[in-house]
């Protein structure tokens, strides 16, 4: 029995109950038809896929189905990122359908991307027919073996009778507990159109080996509250888990009541509104001075749905040296993995914060207001450094200025996807997200090529919203083919390319740590991106002057029904600041030359 398919809101018991009646009337379906029918019964809206031999039976069943929309991408990596973008922006499970062999291996990068960021996804892959498995058959790869290290779970379905129950489990596993991608590998003979069996979609599944804990231990939560209220220099550090648990409102209540400073990881941005004064900015390698200093000096740290990643902690021995740490996480393995914590709370953020708020209420949120006042004074002096300051009178376009202008022109309301590199960090720093699920980026794997295809998924899920893809000239070329998908489905994404002619993030490390030997990080022989966009049937623009940035954006966003690709020619020498070198502590930040002036 599934209890609390909490976070991802993927299935609700009521609709299941209502459908029970209909299920009584059993129909005979082939394996291929069962796959499609199961997806319908899961309430799937979109399948992102690419056909091939091993999935042709499934595709044939798909052709006869009207309810599910199939989005034909141009590369299987694109399918996984699109499904991922769909999942991140909606909280629903993203669905992918690809063929065996090369189709399956092409999907791996996207599966690993989703795995590292805990994104719910079901990937159906074709497999060679069961008698051929293990014979090095045409387009055979051991997908279950290849994907094992980068999935939450995977299945090989050997019998038609197992398709429905396996897909049901796949969706349940993908969306519950700590979400993640699940691969379902289906051999071609299992989907044979000539073999039919009575179909019914299982309403209940019992899995004795899988029961994620969502409710936190009350005793632990009480201890945590006492510690929190006694804090003199408290700090709240939240991550992707708050977004995944749809617990943004609860987090806002908690922070507002306590009036404690809050910082968020790259994955957590938007769960707490960035423009709010209690938010001290992102933390970590490219976090703000005030966030990192406050981490370094806090005496109580409340970590919520964050996994103490090395980009966040810096050198472990120097991490929050004075703090007692409380950690709320649905995955026990995330707790005390990198940093030992004092009060572990295993549970889903939504459940735990609900309980925590009740207990805090009983204690009238009695914080140490005097100490808090002093703490905030200290934080404000750090904030006054204005660590994100950059040179605004440069004759070259500063990448930060472009993001600021995008923020202004979209009124901070856009869904923003990003690729990986400097542009990603500037987007995180300068687009002040005030809602969860609006900032879509690959944090854990750092997958270049993620930005455009993920925007495809976002744009399909949110046809009436502005969707922006912030990218670099190196990243965009990794999945550029998806411009064709955008054309086919009329997706009016705005692509903001910060063109510094370098793999900027690589160049920055080479400048700092390799005496400016720019080994293979210059992007030579770039295409004319304006013409390239046009050749795909889109609008291309180029902006080269700082004073044209905003006007260019206004013009682009005015073209509501068009994909507009803007090539912003930016200062190639700009670096991302602040920066903590790998292996250093939070208090050992490099500030920008412009920032030092402050």
């Amino acid at each position, binding site marked *: 029995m599934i209890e609390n398919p909490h976070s991802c809101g993927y299935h609700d018991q009521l609709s299941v109950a209502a459908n029970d009646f209909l299920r009584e009337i059993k129909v005979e379906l082939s394996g291929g038809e069962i796959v499609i029918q199961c997806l319908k019964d899961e309430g799937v809206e979109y399948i992102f896929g690419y056909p091939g031999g091993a999935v042709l039976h499934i595709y044939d069943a798909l052709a006869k189905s009207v309810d599910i929309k199939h989005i034909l991408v141009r590369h299987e990596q694109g399918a996984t990122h699109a499904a991922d973008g769909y999942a991140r922006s909606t909280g629903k499970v993203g669905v992918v359908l690809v063929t065996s062999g090369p189709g399956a291996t092409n999907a791996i990068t996207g599966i690993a991307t989703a795995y590292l960021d805990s994104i719910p996804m079901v990937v159906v892959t074709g497999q060679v027919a069961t008698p051929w498995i293990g014979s090095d058959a045409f387009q055979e790869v051991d997908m279950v073996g290849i994907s*094992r*290290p980068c999935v939450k779970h995977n299945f090989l379905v050997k019998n038609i009778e197992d398709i429905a129950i396996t897909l049901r489990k796949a969706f349940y*596993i993908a969306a519950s507990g700590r979400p993640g991608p699940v691969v379902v590998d289906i051999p071609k003979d299992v989907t044979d159109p000539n073999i039919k069996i009575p179909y019914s979609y299982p309403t209940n599944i019992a*899995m004795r*080996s899988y029961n994620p804990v969502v409710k936190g231990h009350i005793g632990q939560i009480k201890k945590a509250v006492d510690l929190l209220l006694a804090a003199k220099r408290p700090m709240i550090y939240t991550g992707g888990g708050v977004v995944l648990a749809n617990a943004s409102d609860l987090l806002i209540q908690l922070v507002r009541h306590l009036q404690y400073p809050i910082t968020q990881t790259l994955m957590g941005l938007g769960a707490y509104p960035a423009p709010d004064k209690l938010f001290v900015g992102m933390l970590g390698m490219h976090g703000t001075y005030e966030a990192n200093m406050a981490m370094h000096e806090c005496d109580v740290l409340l970590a919520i749905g964050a996994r103490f990643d090395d980009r966040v902690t810096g050198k472990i021995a120097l991490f929050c040296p004075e703090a007692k740490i409380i950690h709320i996480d649905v995955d*026990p393995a995330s707790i*005390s993995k990198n940093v*030992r914590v004092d009060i572990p709370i295993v549970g889903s953020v939504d459940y735990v914060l609900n309980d925590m708020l009740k207990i805090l209420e009983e204690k009238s949120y009695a914080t140490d207001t005097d100490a808090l006042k002093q703490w905030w004074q200290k934080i404000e002096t750090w904030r006054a450094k204005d660590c994100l300051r950059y040179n605004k009178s440069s004759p070259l376009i500063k990448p930060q200025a472009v993001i600021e202008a995008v923020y202004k022109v979209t009124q901070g309301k856009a869904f923003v996807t990003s690729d990986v590199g400097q542009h990603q960090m500037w987007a995180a720093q300068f687009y002040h997200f005030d809602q969860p699920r609006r900032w879509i980026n690959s944090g854990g794997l750092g997958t270049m090529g993620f930005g455009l295809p993920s925007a495809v998924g976002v744009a399909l899920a949110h046809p009436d919203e502005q969707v922006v893809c912030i990218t670099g000239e190196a990243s965009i070329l990794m999945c550029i083919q998806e411009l064709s998908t955008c054309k086919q489905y009329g997706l009016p994404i705005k692509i903001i390319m910060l063109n510094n002619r370098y793999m900027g993030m690589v160049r920055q490390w080479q400048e700092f740590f390799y005496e400016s030997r720019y080994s293979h990080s210059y992007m030579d022989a770039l295409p004319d991106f304006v013409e390239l966009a046009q050749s795909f049937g889109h609008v291309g623009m180029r902006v080269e002057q700082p004073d044209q940035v905003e006007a260019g954006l206004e013009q682009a966003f005015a073209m509501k029904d068009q994909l507009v690709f803007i090539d912003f020619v930016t200062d190639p020498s700009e670096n991302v600041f602040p920066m903590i070198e790998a292996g250093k502590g939070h208090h050992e930040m490099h500030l920008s030359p412009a920032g030092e002036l402050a």
Partner: protein
Amino acid sequence: MRRIISILMENEAGALCRVAGLFSARGYNIESLTVAPTEDLSLSRMTLVTRGSDEIIEQILKQLNKLVEVVKVMDLTEGFHIERELLLLKVKAKSAEQRTEIKRLTDIFRGKIVDVTELSYTIELTGAGEKLDAFVKAIDLGDIVEVVRSGSSGISRGDKGMRL
């Protein structure tokens, strides 16, 4: 520290790979690993011997628990337990003197001679790892033809069992 971990898991194809894969992917070491179905054929019982600091062992237990097919995980070394391993050893036994000596050693260790040829004895011995180590050491290295060890199986002492 050396730990003996018991795992109860779904008896499904690939379940063993998931455990082995977890250890190699995360760089944990496996000293030995044994697995076989239980009286309930839908379940397998695995005994895994590993070494690591307390932090590593804590992560190992958590990561094992996280595997979707794993039903239960227990660190046997936390309580009183019994550890047994099977040793099969083939040894040269030509002269009468040699044969008596090996027979005597086998008796001391409470082993059994299970196969005899004109040139060799095959001995079966069970016990904790150290006992088997001691036995192997007691036999002249030059006389050993073959050593096969099963890896440890373990069970807790007392009336409680690791069940569903």
